[in-house]
């Protein structure tokens, strides 16, 4: 048999296998490429827009209103005109990304030909967003000056960062990577472990023993959570070695571990539920690509959700990874501010409890046999 003929036989068998199992090739050949194009094409690098920014107008003169109108041009910012106390509350609750303070003597000073400063206080947790705000406010200020025929540099934007130092992309990325580590590790110690156990029959060993069924399930889940936390902590340590800082020190670290525990529980529950529905490793790979990759990429872990197109944002909003990543980022950059963390923690805990229940229920069901 010639080499080409041999090559053809091997090739032909592989293609036959590929075609004979319709689900996998369809997903691999069609869904993956479409998904990647859409995700990478739209989720990253788009311009951020609709960023909520609070504007406090202490001066309500015509000039200030005109300045406000200049800020309002375009879709970059969603301006919320409010008083200082409300604005500060909104900033803490994550309703806005910053506050632009326009002083009482704004119009008076301009009329007198003096320089005037507006103060821009920024939550710089997401560097792409804070730089977009700065750019927009700066250019709005310039066009305002031009419109009323002022000399340049009469209105000065004074920047005020809330969390101490400039946040770099690595600081932004690290919390997402830590959570991704938890997600992937949970997949391996949840779903994958279950499939391997079943494939090699090691589950039988437990099933035939007098150990209670609940103990089997919980034992496996807890081991999985601990394994996930371990890899999460390693990822965090590596990030810190690379210069990422963790605000609130030891307390922040403990809260991160707690967050990893909660998220790990949820992800293990999820992957266990998937593992009980799947019998082959190859299928698990497909599920991983179809479910986990988007969970990761659409979580705001790489790029802010604000840069996604409008139709894609709901995907990020229903994605539990979004909240886990955001909580981790809040703890690491903003420190422990409970009002800021509340929403994330509530969502991720609810997710964890629900997934744990679903996962252990479906696990118990597939165990079969006598209860």
């Amino acid at each position, binding site marked *: 048999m010639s080499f080409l003929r041999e090559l053809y036989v091997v090739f032909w068998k592989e293609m036959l296998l590929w075609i004979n199992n319709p689900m996998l090739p369809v997903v691999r050949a069609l869904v993956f490429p479409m998904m990647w194009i859409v995700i990478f094409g739209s989720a990253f690098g788009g311009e951020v827009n609709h960023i909520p920014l609070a504007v406090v107008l202490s001066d309500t003169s015509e000039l200030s209103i005109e300045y406000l109108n200049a800020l309002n041009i375009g879709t970059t910012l969603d301006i919320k005109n409010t008083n200082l106390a409300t604005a500060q509350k909104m900033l803490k609750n994550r309703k806005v990304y910053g506050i632009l303070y326009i002083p009482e003597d704004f119009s008076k000073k301009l009329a007198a030909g003096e320089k005037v400063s507006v103060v821009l206080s920024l939550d710089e947790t997401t560097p792409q967003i804070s730089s977009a705000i700065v750019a927009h406010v700066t250019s709005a200020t310039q066009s305002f000056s031009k419109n009323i025929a002022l000399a340049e540099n009469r209105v000065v934007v004074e920047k005020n960062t809330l969390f101490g130092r400039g946040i770099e992309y690595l600081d932004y990325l690290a919390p997402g990577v830590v959570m991704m580590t938890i997600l992937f590790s949970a997949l391996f110690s949840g779903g994958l472990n279950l499939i391997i156990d*079943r494939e*090699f*029959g*090691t589950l*039988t*060993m*437990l*099933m*035939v*023993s*007098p*150990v209670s069924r609940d103990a089997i399930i919980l034992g496996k889940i807890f081991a999985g959570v601990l394994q996930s936390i371990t890899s999460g902590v390693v990822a965090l340590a590596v990030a810190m070695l690379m210069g990422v800082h963790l605000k609130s020190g030891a307390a922040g670290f403990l809260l991160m571990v707690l967050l990893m525990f909660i998220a790990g529980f949820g992800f293990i529950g999820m992957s266990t539920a998937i593992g*009980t*529905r799947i*019998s082959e490793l190859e299928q698990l790979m497909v599920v991983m690509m179809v479910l986990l990759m988007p969970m990761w990429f659409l979580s705001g872990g790489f790029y802010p959700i604000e840069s996604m197109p409008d139709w894609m944002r709901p995907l990020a909003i229903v994605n539990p990874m979004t909240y886990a990543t955001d909580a981790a980022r809040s703890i690491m950059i903003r420190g422990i501010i409970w009002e800021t963390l509340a929403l994330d923690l509530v969502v991720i805990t609810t997710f964890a409890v629900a997934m744990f229940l679903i996962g252990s229920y479906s696990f118990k069901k*597939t165990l*079969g*046999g*006598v*209860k």
Partner: protein
Amino acid sequence: MKIIETHELTKEFNGLVAVDKVTFSVERGEIFGFLGPNGAGKTTTIKMLTTLLLPTSGTAYISGFDVVREAAQVRRRIGLVPQRIVLEGDLTARENLLFHGMLYGLSRRDIEAKIPELLELVGLKERADSKVRTFSGGMKRRLELVKVLLHEPEVIFLDEPTVGLDPQTRRKIWEYIQILNRERGVTIFLTTHYMEEADYLCNRICIIDHGKILDIDTPQRLKDKIGEGDIIEMEVSGKGEKFAQALEKECGCQIKKMEENRITITARRGEYALKEIFFLADKLGVEVTSISVREPTLEDVFIHYTGRGIREELVPGSGMMKYLTRRLKQ
């Protein structure tokens, strides 16, 4: 009290009856075998007896405990060596035993104390601290056999204990099974589709096919049932039919099978019947081109009951059944 007792035990998978009203009992200290082809319902029966599968109907008791209502009691009293090896390859032999013992609530110290003796029993003492993944198939089987002894079960279930092993290893495993049974007094329930295995090991054999029990008896009595004496197979040229009739009439042989010019008969004391056979052949002008005399085997018993050999794996439905059980397990 009988150690295993079932009454009309039945398992259906989506309307397909895998085990059909099976009633039998096993005495303490016996080696009891389920003999049947693949897909006969052997593994399904073991799964019901070991609480891994809920019966559709019927009852089964292990040592007086109901396998459904008193599963926890049953589990404490049984050991299972499934068809597939279920050792953790990444753990050492010792660690595997430790884990197993701890599952049954034994203390670490008690287990450690038992390990050398158990490994000695199956000649694995030197390998106690090697990872199981480095073991050969036979070694893994041996380790499995003693692993289940750790919690001192009253009965051990062996599902196809020597499947996929070479003849020498198989023989070794048989010896170990006998040692366990004799020295430890453990009752052994095994399934097999190897006739020699059932014949060699079992005190009593239950022949099962398509989920139904065909007969239960000692190997010897099963073989006696198909007609006493030896089996003579021959190939003749010429008037085979007439020859066969003459054999039956004049030599007191029984015709078992006639296929063109191949004749299978049974005769008491086969060696002595040969003379008469050749004499008769000469008389009728029939040429015997080949002839063999052998003692009956369980294979003959199985053919007697089902009309086909146990190794013919073209059992319709068995593949489907495997597929279904797989689906159901998921």
